[in-house]
């Protein structure tokens, strides 16, 4: 019953979205060692509290989002596009609006 404020589409029911995974992972370059890749792919914290996670608005704009969510309360603290260029463009626009 979570609702996610999509930066492009507005407040939407979670059933429109697909959960991705841990949004804090920095994937190493493709030519990095298998040890580095192992850590990025397999090691995860099991956070009770606020975490960053990725969701895709599959049944909407299809954008990948980084959602800051409290795993205890399901409270959503922030949402931004996963694409850094889009995220900063959107932030600039919001700043200009204010």
């Amino acid at each position: 019953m979570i609702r996610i404020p999509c930066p492009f589409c507005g407040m939407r029911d979670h059933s429109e979205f697909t959960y991705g995974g841990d949004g804090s992972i920095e994937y190493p370059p493709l030519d990095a060692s298998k040890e580095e890749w192992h850590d990025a792919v397999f090691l995860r914290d099991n956070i009770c509290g606020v975490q960053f996670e990725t969701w895709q608005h599959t049944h909407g704009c299809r954008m990948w989002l980084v959602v800051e969510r409290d795993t205890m309360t399901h409270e959503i603290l922030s949402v931004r596009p996963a694409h850094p260029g889009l995220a900063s463009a959107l932030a600039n626009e919001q700043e200009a609006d204010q």
Partner: protein
Amino acid sequence: MTARRLDKGGRIDRSTPVNFTWDGKALTGYAGDTLASALLANGERVLGRSFKYHRPRGIMSAGVEESGAIVTVGEGARREPNVKATMQELYDGLSAEGQNAWPNVRFDLGAVNGLFGRFFAAGFYYKTFMGLPPFEWGHGTRLWMLYEKLIRKAAGMGTASREPDPDCYDHAHAFCDVLVVGSGPAGLSAALTAAEAGRDVILVEQDFELGGDLLTDPAAEQQRLDLVRAVEAAGARIMTRTTAFGLYDNGAAGLLERVTDHIASPDEGIPRQRFWTVRAGATVLASGALERPVTFENNDRPGVMTAEAARVYLNRFGVLPGQRIAIATNNDGAYGIAGELASAGAEVLLADMRNGDVPETPSGVTQKSGVAPLRAIGRSGVEGVEFASRSGDSWKPAGKEPCDLLLVSGGWSPVVNLSSHRGAKPFWNESLACFLPGETSEPIFHAGSAAGVWRREDCLASGAAAARKAMGEEVEEVAPGGWKNAIQPVYEVRLPDSHAKAFVDYQHDVTGDDVRLAHQEGFVSVEHLKRYTTLGMATDQGKMGNVIGLALMADALGKDIPDVGTTRFRPPYTPVAIGALAGRSVAGHFKALRRTPLHDWNLRHGATMTDAGVWHRPWYYAREGEGIEEAYIREAATVRKTVGICDVSSLGKIAVQGPDASEFLNRVYTNAFAKLPVGKARYGIMLRDDGIVMDDGTTWRLGEEDYLTTTTTAHAGKVMVWFEELLQSRWPDLKVHVTSVSDHWAGVSIAGPKAREVIAACLAADEDISNDVLPFMGVARITLKNGIEGLIARISFSGELAYELYVPAGQADAMMNLLWPAAEAVDGCLYGLEALGTLRIEKGHVTGAELDGRVTIDDVGLGKMASAKKSFVGSALRQRSELLRENRPQLVGIFPVDRSQRFKGGSLLCDPDAVTGFGEGWITAVTHSPALGHWIGIGYISGGAAAWKDKTAVAADPVRSGNVDVEIVSPHMFDPEGVRMHG
């Protein structure tokens, strides 16, 4: 119990009789009755049999907490078990029957269980039958499985219809500022306050009439009407026959609206029930309180009910439930009903369990103080009560009194279930002897008796205050309580050494002794107590028994109730039919269905369809006299001999476009894509991050910055999501745009030695697809004879000379109307999925059955496609030692040693000396090969074909066809050099 309908009084309509049947007997009630009130008025006493001991049970309450009158309503496909008679509205023609009894609830042979009651204590079945010797694992289990069947037959509740549900159910959504649950004085007051302040209010009531407690007070009728009219006038949306069964995140509530359950023959277009998801800004819970019984010997006899139930039957339904009535109470609440019953003509004895101050005795009532019920006398119904008085910490007998109805009030439990769903932990209030709703940071507010506020005027104020809080105002709380004299908690009355049947949870036959046994055996946590005794796990979810169970556990532990704690309530508050949860997502709407643009054309040309994931695809095109086997074998043979056409529109198609498209594909695929020339296609494999194969397909370079990537049908969605994730999250610097064009193109594969000839006959005059112009893996834009423009690629899944031809989806039929006559002219055929499977198995080409998320690129024998010169997704982790192990299962072909034998997909491949366990591999797909003339298969086996060169394996299929000796061969079973497709 000599219950009878009174000549006047109540809210029933005596001018509208309603006919119904009970256990086949024709009875009559009135409009406004529930099934329970009508049965009571007809003098029916035994309405059910208990879960375990088959004890006779009658009406115990007048609401959702009912644990006795649980019946089966309806017939045939509409037969619904475990209906609480107290919640079922009477309608003309209603048919109900008793359950869990044979031959009937009044004379039930299963009651013999009661004689062996001491053997049926908590955990009895598990301890006895699972521990039967021999004790080795497996043997005991087998015996248990045998006994379980018999036990299940003897125990349990009603039986559901085995027929498909003929009714339909709807899902609906609503939004509001304030959701008010319950329409008693507090709920009406809350709804009125919020609606008058301009808020959008939804008021839900599980009953069919608004008013809650006001419905049982004839003197308050005008007040009720005024309140209801005011709420309506203020614009609140009112939903009756609707239960708020659960609260969820972000202010969401689940409601179940019973739309036609009270209608004799509802319009077929109307759903039976509606499942609502309501999003509320704030929620006011005015869900009331439920009266508790007390545990004493035979406290489950028909004729023992709550005092509140008698009030409802008398004042709302005009039924005097007994003539000689004993009331046992430990609080002030029962004094009102005592007087009302006396005024209605009953002989009333009011036994107050308290010593000390009690309210004034109502006129016409005999009152006793300091005595509690010790035992109900009578077998199939109450004939009297034996009292007890306090003797130190315990009780001693204190005389018997005859009675035909024994009313009990052991205190009141606020309905805190809904906020408990949100994790608000109820806390124990010592002076009121009940749990009050816990704190929550969410905008959920309690009002009225749900907050432990007992008096009506206080409930009205409490409702208004809760509404103000819901609107964000600061207001003073209305303090809980309201009785003049304090309640004196009594949970169980028994003599010190007594082990008579005294029930805590009626529905699951959990007794006071069961709770003590659980404690004695070390189950000290309340959660363990629940699971060991099943206390609170029946259809009422402990509405009557939970608090008593906790109190007895606390007593056994020598602790106070707050130190024992309580279990968390979980949705649903009352049972919800699976049909309502499913809504319209049943039968053909159970999952999405996708049809190719050629669907109708395929059907017109004799296709038998099959489900392939969400797709409906042609399976085979049977000719006169053919079954599936004859058809697919003919189709596969025809492709190898002349030509066949297959609908491949369901393949995933992604347009990959932009200046960095080449770089993107080069990173995604294991093989090199950077130098793929325009006008060429390449087969590629992509891996997941962890080095396992994700998908395969061909990618066509249509222009410098323009590619068309095809995926398998099954993984089309997954690959698209993956591309989007890579471009948006990982490689945002790449200038690439991906678009799903799967639905834009209709595609067919034309395969066979005459494929070129057939296509050439359909092309515009200046088109040329000769080997020089369109060689193997060549791609071109092409125009058909009728002017349709499309794409053609010379790629082969069947191993034949083959082409894939794509045209815009809307022109699919027009394309086929050209191609098919041309194919027919050379004795070609249409072929479906089954023949497609045959052709690809003969060639050892992989599909989803082989790319099952566990295999590496080396396992499928395509390791040479993994470039050593570049990095790609998965290139690091495919180097993990386990994935490089030499003897991993590898893709192989499989022949039966005796070529006349067949084997099945899913068989395990074993060493003949060790046909056991997981074996050495498995078979993913089998077919009869017309090209080879016998059954063949593909699968995986340790070490691959090389390791099994001179060794026979066994295809083991122990539960179906048995074992077959097989030969392990290269997966390229037909034309391994590929001469045919290059031709």
